[in-house]
Structures are given as C-alpha cells and as structure tokens.
C-alpha cells in the first residue's frame, strides 16, 4: 500500500483490523449480535470476535451460501447476524440467500465483504472483488456501503447493528489513507464533502477517496479546482449532493476500485441522467476487465486506479466542458 502524506493523520491499521475490533467493541455487550465466518476468520479478523464472544461465533467452514442462509434464520428469530468472507464469495456464492432472504424478505442480515476490490492483490483475479457493488446494488432493499477509511469502517459496524435491514458493506484487506478524524459524524445516505471546488467533482468511494484528495492537490497546481466527495453510501445514493455538485461544478468524475460497469459510476450516471443534469462525466475504475496478481500498489497503478489516473481522467473530463 502506498504510504502517502495526506496532511491528515496516517494510521497504520488495515481496514480488516479496524473491522474486527469494531465487531468486538459494538457486539460484545449486545446479545443479539452473532458473527458467522466461512473459514477465513484469521483473514477477515472476525477471529477477534470469536475470542471475545465464542458462544455467538459460528465458523461454518467453506460454505458461503449456507452461511448466508443460516444468517437469515438467525435474523428471522431476532438476531443481528454478520456474515464474513472475501467480498467476491459473499456476493456470488451467497447471492441466492442474499436475494430471497435479504432483498425479498428484508431480513436483518449484514453481508460483510472482506478483501474488496484488488486488495487481496497477490491471490489474483479469482479473489479480487470488482463487481460486488454492482451485484448488491441491483438487489431491492439492500443498502450498500464502501468503507473508505478507519473511522468510517468503525461507524459502519455500529450502524449495521443499530439500523435494521439487509446491508452489504465492502471492506478491505489493506491500509487506507486516513481521511476522517475519529470523532467524525456520519449519516446514512449522506455523502461527505471532503474538499470544495468549482471546476469538477470527484465522486469517489473506498481507497479512491484518499487518492482523490491527493489528485485534487495536484490538479490545483494546474488550475483545476476539484471538489471531492466520499460517496460511501452507494445505496441509498446521496442524490441531492451529487446533483448539486454536478450543477455547481459542471463535470463529474467517479472513482472506484471496481469495474466501471454498474458500480458507483453507474449509480451516479443513472441519477444524473434521470435528473437531466447532463454534464461531462468520466469514470475511473477497472475497464470492464479482470486484473492479475501482483502487489496492491502495482495493480492499482497498472489498472489505472491511482492518483495519476484520476488526474488524467479529471483533466480530460474538464476539457469536455462547454
């Protein structure tokens, strides 16, 4: 993971570590919280919850669909189940239970996608999650969030426990640039404006939020004043913030560690088109392709998911403004 200086405090904890700790922090004293894992608890860090609350931890083995359906059963009798595996398995193997029990039945299940995006870098495309957001966003009644830093990850766990309904939360294996202070207040459905600007809005999620802030600094040197929004709440999308930002800055570039098909970029484009807010748009994401194995930093660079890719895309998009 590139260690950049964001001007904010750089914390050393991986998102998965923050997640595991938050599960313990908010779940230990809540008898309704149960945690299920598919034989990857050392990776997802739910092992921390297992150590704290062994009677409410269920390792189901490598059986993601079964895990998700079991979670539905727990939810139907009043528990708050968190299911855990790599994001790609949670959103493919466990998709049928997600659909019938979460989406259709609105059971209170929390689908936690560890190792989002390319963060399980060396394991290669079989273990990358590049279409998880698109899949889960298509399910009625599911809410979808992408963690962009430690403070937000902590809040998302608390929010998942407190707010009833099916959710998909994408996490990461890696360390993310820190963008929020630990006392930041978040609200469901409200994106976060991290930097104001007048020429273009970068609407980002996940690791790309930190990159967007750095890109904005680089763009400022070229005279492009970029607004940066953390759209961690993919569904419900903060449509108002998106529309206002598009109208006031006149251009939108989305940035996500995900395929350009169907994720944050798709959601933003749908919203802007439906409102008739037709501004030049650019999409930073995987170009409808699979990546490969390598270091996380190398992959983000080769597949154009880094600061330089963002700067180039913003420059090009702003150039299309009338």
């Amino acid at each position: 993971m590139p260690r950049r200086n964001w001007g904010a405090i750089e914390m050393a904890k991986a998102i998965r570590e923050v997640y595991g700790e938050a599960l313990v922090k908010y779940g230990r004293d809540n008898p309704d919280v149960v945690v299920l894992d598919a034989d990857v608890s050392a990776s997802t860090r739910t092992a921390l919850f297992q150590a704290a609350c062994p009677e409410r931890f269920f390792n189901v083995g490598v059986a993601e669909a079964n895990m998700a359906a079991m979670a539905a059963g727990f939810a139907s009798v009043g528990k708050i189940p968190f299911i855990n595996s790599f994001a790609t398995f949670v959103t493919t193997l466990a998709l049928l239970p997600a659909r019938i029990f979460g989406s259709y039945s609105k059971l209170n299940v929390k689908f936690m996608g560890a190792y989002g995006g390319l963060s399980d870098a060396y394991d290669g495309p079989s273990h990358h999650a590049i279409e998880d957001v698109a899949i889960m966003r298509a399910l009625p009644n599911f809410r979808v969030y992408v963690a962009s830093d430690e403070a937000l990850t902590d809040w998302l766990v608390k929010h998942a426990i407190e707010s009833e309904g099916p959710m998909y939360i994408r996490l990461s294996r890696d360390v993310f640039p820190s963008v929020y202070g630990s006392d930041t207040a978040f609200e469901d459905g409200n994106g976060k404006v991290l930097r104001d600007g007048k020429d273009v809005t970068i609407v980002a999620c996940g690791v790309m939020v930190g990159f967007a802030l750095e890109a904005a600094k680089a763009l400022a040197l070229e005279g492009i004043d970029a607004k940066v929004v953390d759209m961690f709440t993919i569904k419900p999308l903060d449509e108002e913030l998106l529309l206002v930002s598009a109208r006031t800055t006149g251009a939108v570039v989305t940035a996500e560690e995900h395929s350009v098909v169907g994720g944050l970029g798709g959601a933003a484009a749908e919203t802007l088109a439906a409102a008739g807010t037709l501004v030049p748009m650019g999409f930073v994401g995987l170009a409808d392709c699979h990546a490969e194995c390598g270091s996380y930093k190398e992959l983000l660079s080769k597949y154009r998911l880094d600061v330089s890719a963002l700067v180039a895309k913003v420059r090009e998009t702003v150039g299309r403004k009338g």
Partner: protein
Amino acid sequence: MGLTAERKAYLEKLCGKFRRDVVDALYKAQTGHPGGSLSVCEILTTLYFEKANVDPQNPEKPDRDRIVLCKGHAAPMLYRVLAEKGFFPVEEMKTLRRLNTRLQGHPSVKHTPGVDLSTGPLGAGLSAALGMALGLRLSKTGARVYAVLGDGDVNEGMVWEACMSAVKFKADNLVAIYDWNRVQLDGKSADIMPQGDMEAKFSAFGWRCLTCGGHDIKSLCDAIDKANAYPDGRPVMILADTVKGKGVSFMEGQNTWHGKAISEADHKRAAAELGGD
C-alpha cells in the same frame, strides 16, 4: 401425549378436505404445483395441528416453533393448512397466485400471515432453519424448528452444507422432515439424480435418522415424538415415505403433475376421487 383414534380420524378428515380444496384452488388458478402439494399434506397437517407450538392468536410470539417449507412450491397446501389454523380466511385460497394476493406463488413472510420463512429457490431452507434453531437456542426459548424438505431440494449442495453444520453446532432442536416421494420436475429422482441410500447418507453426516409413513398421521406423530425425545446434541432427519400427487390416482407418482395446470376434465375426475362436494 398419544394420538387418540378420534383425533386421528379428525386429522385425516382435515387432510381429505385440504386435498380437495387445494385441487380446486389450483384448478381455479390454472397455475401452481399439484404433485408436491398433495404429497406434503399429512406432514404439514400433523405439524400445524398436532405437534408444533403455533398460535394464530399470537403469531409473533418469540418462543413459538418455526416451520420452514423448504420445498416452497408446495405453498398451496401450506396456505390451506394455515387458513384452517386461523391465520387468514379459507376463502382467500381463491386468490392464489393472482395479482394483489397475499398468497404468492411461493411462500413469502412479507405477504402471508403464519409463514415463517420465504422459500422457493430450493436448497436454502434447511440452512435457514438451522440458523433459526441456533438463534432460538441462544435466546433460550426452548422452541423447535421443523424443516420440510423435498427431493429436488436435496439435489442442492447447500442442503449438505447445512447437514454438516447442523451436526457441528449440535442443533438438537432442529427436525427435518423429508417429504420423500422420489419424483421431481423432470422425472423420477432415480433418473434425474440417483439418491442411493439416503438414510445412510444422512446418518453418515451425523444425523439421527427415523423413517415413517408420510401419509400416515400416527406414524408421523410417532416419528416427531421420537425426534423431540432425543435432546442429545444431534439433529434429526425423518424420512417420510410419500407419494407425489397422493390422493388423485392419475397424478400419483407422475412427474408431469409437478407443475401442470389442471384441465376442466381432470378437475372433474380429481374432484370425484377426492369427494367433498
């Protein structure tokens, strides 16, 4: 408590009525699944009217037993049983599968009073029933969970994942009842996906296996009593020997009646066999 002769006769009479009403509802709807509905009649009747702790006056009580119809396509029989139990008026059977109905094509918790879990896609029911059982155990309610499986259902790999998990987690408040008619949509199970020795398979996974006559209410009651008398850390699988399409001679054992609309002529023949007019 043993099943009295009087009670047994009453439940058998109910089953006769349910079969006729379900065939009528399916005829009226011109869509739906006769074969599996007729097959599961005694299993659901025994559960709801004799063995499970379910109260339509207090449908959400936390310590109630849960019943999961994993083979969700048999919804018409579930609906008829729930209606008789008092969850909704029997007349509502006329709305089966119609626009705006509470009686969806497959069971839905959001639509139908008394339904404990939405089902339809096969394979997922037993896993969910296991989650219910473990959740109820954590809450120390003493409630039991009954999962009703079918032949198509056990084709799905998830069922076997659930079988392993139920044993690992010692879910002895989980009872699976396998509506074992050995016929599925495309043909006999022996041809579609040969089952081999099912009892040996479930036993090998660690389940306590019991067998019973799936259309014999006394036999079903005995098996369920036995299942509930073994709180020894093992889930119980009751292999209930049944006949697909039971009660209508030309539907019995016929995969073609899995999900076929009933013609006027066939409805007349079926009605004559089932009586009740």
